């Protein structure tokens, strides 16, 4: 087999140089050999990194900003990672042990974003949660100062029978950062977890985030990705259903405006019998923008009685917006219920007419219908302060319209 040498661009060259600088030579050589993924790589079909990642800034310098948060959630227990460094924090609530450890996330996934995160991350936040954790746990991941390349990682373990609500907020100074964050979250037997990630990066930034989940027996997980920031963003969600009876509502929302490209890519593995998932992704695109949703459901040969339904819905608020959706089902078991659906369109004219015929102005009616479109994602968030904070993110985005 002949290997065609890859022509490397300035972003790749810089990444290779940085990988060598941190001693990750094997990763550097690997990247030099294959380059960043292009549209020919199926998992990056709509998010061609070779094309979209034009420049890589210098590795971010250490920072110790602790009191900045892009999202205020009253009553939350706050943790911070700034420019890759785990920050000091207040007293942890009952059932929460905070620590940090060397290295990135515990993953073996062959994905360039995850590999780069693993190679660059030196300091990982660890969270051990037991029992019912009362307050919402908020992890602020910030990239501070001038444009920098920053990675961070968190490993979260929720014990058997425990319950917790965890929110991660990605933000930073208004610069052309390259951020790459990772989370590994293990949901113990019978545990109930809500994990929300909110991308509020600068509109100049490129942002990557990966959340990998391991679900134990009868574990119940709800996830919500909100991509509202960054010029280019890709949030990857990798749930693995490893215990019978595990269920996950994997949800996500791309909010893109002029000049933005946001991608939510899910790759779910139903590994054992009797697990279920309900992935639901929504995108709202306005101006000249692009929203991408890729969802792959893999059902292993032994994973009989898997029940998985993948849905993607898009709302286009301009003629120049693009919403690209790719569902994939890869099923090796023969006794399963799996399906996918996708809709994409504009606001319903009949709905709009009904509202305006009652005196509600057109802009207000449109806002009501957009909120209605998103209600399915936000309504299940039971914590009132958190629900209000997320609603605020959405309202803020709508108001900028």
């Amino acid at each position, binding site marked *: 087999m002949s290997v065609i040498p890859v022509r490397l661009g300035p972003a790749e060259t810089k990444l290779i140089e940085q990988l060598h600088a941190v001693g990750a030579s094997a990763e550097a050589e690997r990247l030099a050999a294959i380059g960043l993924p292009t549209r020919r790589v199926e998992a990056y079909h709509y998010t061609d990194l070779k094309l979209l990642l034009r420049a890589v800034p210098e590795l971010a310098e250490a920072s110790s900003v602790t009191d900045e948060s892009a999202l205020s959630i009253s009553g939350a227990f706050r943790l911070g990672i700034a420019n890759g460094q785990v920050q000091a924090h207040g007293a942890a609530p009952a059932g929460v042990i905070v620590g940090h450890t060397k290295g990135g996330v515990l993953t073996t996934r062959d994905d360039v974003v995850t590999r780069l995160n693993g190679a660059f991350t030196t300091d990982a936040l660890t969270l051990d949660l037991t029992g019912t954790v009362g307050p919402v746990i908020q992890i602020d991941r910030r990239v501070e100062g001038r444009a920098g390349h920053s990675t961070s990682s968190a490993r979260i373990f929720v014990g058997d029978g425990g319950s917790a609500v965890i929110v991660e907020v990605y933000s930073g100074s208004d610069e052309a950062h390259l951020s790459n964050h990772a989370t590994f979250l293990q949901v113990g037997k019978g545990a109930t977890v809500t994990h929300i990630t909110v991308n509020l990066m600068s509109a100049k930034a490129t942002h990557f985030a990966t959340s990998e989940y391991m679900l134990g027996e009868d574990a119940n997980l709800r996830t919500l990705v909100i991509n509202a920031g960054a010029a280019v963003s890709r949030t990857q969600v990798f749930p693995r259903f490893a215990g019978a009876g595990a269920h996950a509502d994997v949800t996500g929302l791309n909010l893109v405006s002029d000049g933005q490209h946001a991608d939510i890519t899910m790759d779910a593995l139903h590994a054992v019998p009797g697990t279920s998932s309900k992935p639901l992704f929504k995108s709202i695109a306005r101006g000249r923008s692009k929203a991408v949703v890729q969802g792959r459901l893999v059902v292993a040969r032994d994973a009989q009685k898997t029940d998985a339904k993948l849905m993607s819905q898009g709302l286009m608020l301009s003629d120049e917006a693009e919403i690209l959706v790719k569902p994939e089902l890869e099923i090796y078991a023969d006794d399963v219920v799996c399906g996918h659906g996708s809709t994409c369109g504009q606001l319903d004219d009949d709905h709009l007419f009904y509202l305006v015929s*009652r005196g509600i102005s057109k802009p207000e009616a449109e806002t009501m219908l957009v909120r209605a479109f*998103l209600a399915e994602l936000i309504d299940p968030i039971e914590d009132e302060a958190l629900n209000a904070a997320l609603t605020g993110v959405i309202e803020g985005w709508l108001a900028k319209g």
Partner: protein
Amino acid sequence: MTTPMLEIRDLHVRIAEREILKGVNLVVPKGEVHAIMGRNGSGKSTLSYVLAGKDDYEITSGEVLLDGVNILEMEPSERAVAGLFLAFQYPIEIPGVATMTFLKAALNATRKGRGEDDISTPDFMRAVKEAGAQLNIDSDMLKRALNVGFSGGEKKRAEILQMALLKPKMCVLDETDSGLDIDALQVVSKGVNALRDGTRSMLVITHYQRLLNHIVPDVVHVFSDGKVVESGPKELALELEAKGYAGFDGEKAA
């Protein structure tokens, strides 16, 4: 002479290349209830949508004056604020929009148009409760998303509830009787009749005489092939029921 509540002058309307309304002339004085009767496809519903401002139609000529003001250039929301209300033949289901949120938004929009402040939440709750009681609308129904999962009767009652809250000057009721059993028809009619106050005007569109036993009109207009072909007192409805539409427009029944 006082200004009529609604005056339609030589209204011509088309969809694509087909003319639907072919010169409608109609005057509804203040405080009166007029009925429009006509067979299916005669253009009755088109007339109601054109009055409310739906933009699927091309108005080629004519005028529509609401209390002396031409509304054809106004946005649908402005017409509603000016006091026009269309009770839909098929009220739209809107998942994700809470009924109460919608009612409050509509009420505040019309109040704002009249230069009034937003209604306070307790006042709003009270107003909805009072209007709802008359129409057998319970709080369970109001907790649901707008019209979602409502039965045909519930949808029509919800329309009348909106009418009672928004207090329009001119109500257009498009086939409000369709899909109603006799009990529901009585509830709805009672609700409509309660809104007759000597000033508010109504245009009741139907193709059955039945509704007009409950909502007794001052004047009946017979509508055929895109225009009014006959107008007369309420007895005209009975005559129409006896002779059929063919007795008025000479066409065979569709």
